[in-house]
């Protein structure tokens, strides 16, 4: 970890690396994931899915399935409450189709039965009559004026008349005079790129157990990145009030954004309501690929001008994203991110979202940014090659810094891009020799990071320990980070604190675990909750000492007189105050509820060495180093894990991962054998360099770190391949057949 010397605060707990609190349970198989929950009398739920890419549902006959022995309930879209709000209606008809199926795998009906065999048999007895409709799965084809219309009437007012009805929204960002900027350039390069849709690839499939009784009270246990969001969506779909539905998040085996959406929980609740028994649904891997949310698929044009000495004079990008069969705003995030790393006088990004007959896109780490930045960083790299410039020097020359008017509008405050670029420049990796068929690539990356709605409750127990209840599922080590921040603020040991994820009935609303928000926002709420209880503990000490409450302050885990005039008393520790708390005023607890804002943006730089086998087209990653500004790394092990994990996922996007559709519009590779994610034996150790440029919006300087690491790998790997094979690939993934084709001049 590189110490920039910017952070002045001396931490005692924050920045240490205690053993992960969930480690033993996960290693020993005791951790309760979504599929591990059981209940007496539980039924097995299974879902019937569309075999068509696009079709009208003429009729559904469930009579034979209902009559099958062992079947306790069958539901269709008619069993959910029709929603007026358009966003909720999209979720409703995605969860169970009503009039049309919009993609291969779209849910049509579901059964609850005494076991999985009976449930599968019942699905075969449901008679669905379809009228097949023309389909379109390619983003550019869907923009053609005569393309099959996925959903009519979904274009927003931002879309000009005359475009395909599949174009749902348009956005534009930027500033300056593009024409003048390109006129100043010594070289202008314009390229078109495509990227495939990719899946988050979490190992744990979606799973839930739902129980709804005849009096309308309901419980759901599920693997999710946001159980409050599950409640917000399921309650109206079932026509019940939020207070009657309690949702508890299980341990989660990966999410990466894909578990911010709801797919099976309303179905399980509807089946439970109808059958009067608890119902468990666990998706198969085939269902996960076909019916949950991959990323957008994209087609992009990028034009950049540069002077001979490496100054970027103008940048222009047009992004065409498809988030599947429902409108989505991911292209807006891509368009804002595309040029965010650079200080540009003239820049524009134009974005379009297009409907296709693919599953509804779900978030995936920095949604929209990796694709756009891949295209921009590829063109910058090609300019560097053609102008014979060092690619790191060029990025340093153009890097955004404090005071830069960003490409998406706001002026940057303290940011860490320059520090990460200089760290990469000075790292031994950048000057290490390369061999035959090898290449080195680099890319900068950016993500916004968010705060959001957050509730935390912190209890001081009578034995001097502390319990923290927070409402965000722990997907990246947040329980450890929250405990560290609570311990830091209270001045006690980390081992005295335990953080748990409370259910929806136990705390105020919490936004999803997304947007790299949890360590920042929940940490901030925890600090405030700790300060709340510290104030109360100072009050208790003041009463014991019979002095004014304002004359007591908190130092190193104990109440102490604020000064000589307050009186002479020995420090009263948290444990001492806790031990008498039931006699001095009652239980001690602090809490904090707020909308956290002020999350600082984050930048990263990745260096990648690869070797291409000219006979097979296979690309091996030889060396990889991630440099990222974490603001303050609360638990560096987890920060490094985020940096490594993001890099590995991005390498997968670059080299192998893609949704492949046949001419029939059906997904051809819905499984890990045919959808190739990187595994440990594919990769070298991913080296990490954490930089700490404090976020002024957080008392410890914390920035989110979870999303930025997936942004640079696409271009870092692609730029390395371009330098290794002497030609630029403009479509991802750069799978062996594509590289062989390029090498053979195809």
């Amino acid at each position, binding site marked *: 970890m590189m110490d920039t010397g910017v952070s002045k605060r001396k931490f005692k707990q924050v920045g240490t690396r205690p053993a992960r609190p969930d480690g033993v349970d996960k290693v020993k198989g005791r951790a309760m994931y979504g599929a591990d929950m059981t209940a007496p009398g539980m039924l097995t739920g299974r879902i019937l899915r569309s075999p068509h890419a696009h079709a009208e549902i003429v009729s559904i006959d469930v009579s034979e399935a209902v009559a099958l022995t062992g079947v306790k309930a069958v539901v269709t879209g008619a069993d959910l409450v029709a929603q007026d709000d358009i966003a909720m209606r999209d979720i409703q008809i995605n969860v169970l189709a009503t009039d049309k199926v919009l993609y291969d795998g779209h849910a049509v009906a579901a059964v609850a039965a005494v076991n999985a065999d009976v449930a599968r048999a019942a699905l075969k007895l449901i008679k669905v009559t379809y009228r097949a409709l023309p389909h379109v799965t390619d983003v550019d084809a869907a923009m053609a004026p005569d393309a099959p219309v996925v959903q009519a009437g979904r274009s*927003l007012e931002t879309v000009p008349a005359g475009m395909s009805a599949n174009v749902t929204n348009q956005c*534009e960002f930027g500033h300056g005079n593009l024409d003048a900027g390109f006129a100043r350039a010594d070289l202008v390069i314009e390229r078109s790129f495509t990227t495939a849709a990719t899946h988050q690839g979490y190992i744990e499939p979606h799973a839930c157990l739902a129980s709804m009784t005849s009096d309308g009270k309901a419980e759901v246990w599920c693997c999710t990145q946001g159980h409050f969001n599950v409640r917000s969506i399921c309650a109206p779909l079932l026509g019940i009030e939020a207070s009657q539905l309690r949702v508890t998040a299980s341990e989660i085996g990966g999410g990466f954004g894909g578990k911010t959406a709801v797919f099976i929980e309303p179905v399980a609740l509807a089946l439970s309501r109808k059958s009067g028994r608890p119902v468990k649904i666990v998706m198969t891997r085939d269902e996960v690929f076909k019916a949950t949310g991959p990323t957008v698929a994209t087609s992009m044009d990028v034009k950049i001008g540069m002077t001979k000495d490496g100054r970027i004079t103008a940048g222009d990008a047009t992004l065409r994203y498809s988030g599947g069969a429902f409108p989505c705003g991911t292209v807006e995030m891509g368009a804002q991110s595309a040029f965010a790393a650079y200080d540009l006088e003239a820049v524009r990004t134009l974005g379009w979202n297009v409907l296709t007959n693919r599953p509804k896109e779900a978030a995936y780490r920095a949604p929209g940014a990796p694709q756009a930045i891949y295209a921009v960083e590829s063109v910058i790299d090609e300019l560097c090659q053609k102008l014979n410039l060092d690619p790191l020097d060029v990025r340093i020359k153009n890097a955004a810094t404090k005071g830069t008017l960003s490409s998406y509008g706001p002026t940057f405050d303290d940011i860490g891009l320059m520090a990460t670029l200089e760290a990469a420049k000075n790292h031994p990796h950048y000057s290490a020799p390369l061999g035959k068929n090898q290449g080195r690539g680099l890319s900068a990356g950016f993500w916004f990071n968010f705060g959001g709605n957050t509730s935390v409750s912190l209890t001081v127990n009578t034995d001097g320990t502390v319990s923290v209840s927070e409402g965000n599922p722990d997907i990246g080590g947040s329980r450890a980070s929250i405990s560290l921040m609570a311990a830091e603020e209270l001045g006690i040991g980390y081992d005295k604190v335990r953080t748990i994820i409370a259910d929806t009935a136990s705390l105020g609303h919490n936004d999803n675990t997304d947007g790299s928000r949890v360590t920042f926002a929940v940490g901030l709420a925890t600090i405030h909750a700790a300060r709340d209880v510290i104030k109360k503990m100072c009050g208790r000490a003041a009463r014991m000492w019979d002095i004014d409450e304002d004359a007591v302050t908190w130092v190193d885990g104990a109440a102490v007189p604020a000064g000589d005039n307050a009186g002479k008393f020995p420090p009263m520790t948290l444990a001492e105050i806790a031990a008498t708390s039931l006699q001095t005023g009652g239980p001690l607890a602090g809490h904090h509820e707020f*909308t956290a804002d002020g999350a600082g943006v984050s930048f990263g730089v990745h260096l990648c060495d690869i070797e291409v086998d000219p006979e097979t087209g296979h690309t091996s990653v030889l060396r990889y180093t991630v440099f990222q500004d974490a603001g303050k790394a609360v638990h560096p092990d987890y920060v490094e894990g985020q940096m490594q994990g993001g890099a590995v996922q991005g390498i997968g996007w670059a080299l192998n991962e893609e949704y492949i559709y046949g001419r029939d519009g059906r997904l051809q590779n819905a499984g890990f054998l045919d959808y190739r994610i990187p595994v440990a034996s594919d990769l070298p150790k991913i080296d990490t360099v954490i930089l700490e440029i404090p976020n002024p919006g957080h008392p410890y300087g914390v920035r989110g770190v979870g*999303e930025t690491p997936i942004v640079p790998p696409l271009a870092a790997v692609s730029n390395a391949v371009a330098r290794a094979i002497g030609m630029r690939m403009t479509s991802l993934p750069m799978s062996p057949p594509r590289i062989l084709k390029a090498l053979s001049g195809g």
Partner: protein
Amino acid sequence: MVQVTLFGSIRAHADGRAKVEVEARNFKELLDRLVEQYPGMKPQIDRGVSVAIDGLVYKEAWFAPIKPDSEVVLLPYMQGG
């Protein structure tokens, strides 16, 4: 009065201007005044917008204060993964 920078696709509802001025002391007043002065922005604002105030992005905090000399940038509603 505060000066508000508009992202490109919403400028059409302000006669193509990149910057407009409104009387607002916080995020909510900003949205209310924009809708009053530029009714064409209402669909976008109803769908959700974010605002960057002096470089920090706010998604929902209606009472986030805006000073007369604050840099204010209207942005689409942001989401992460």
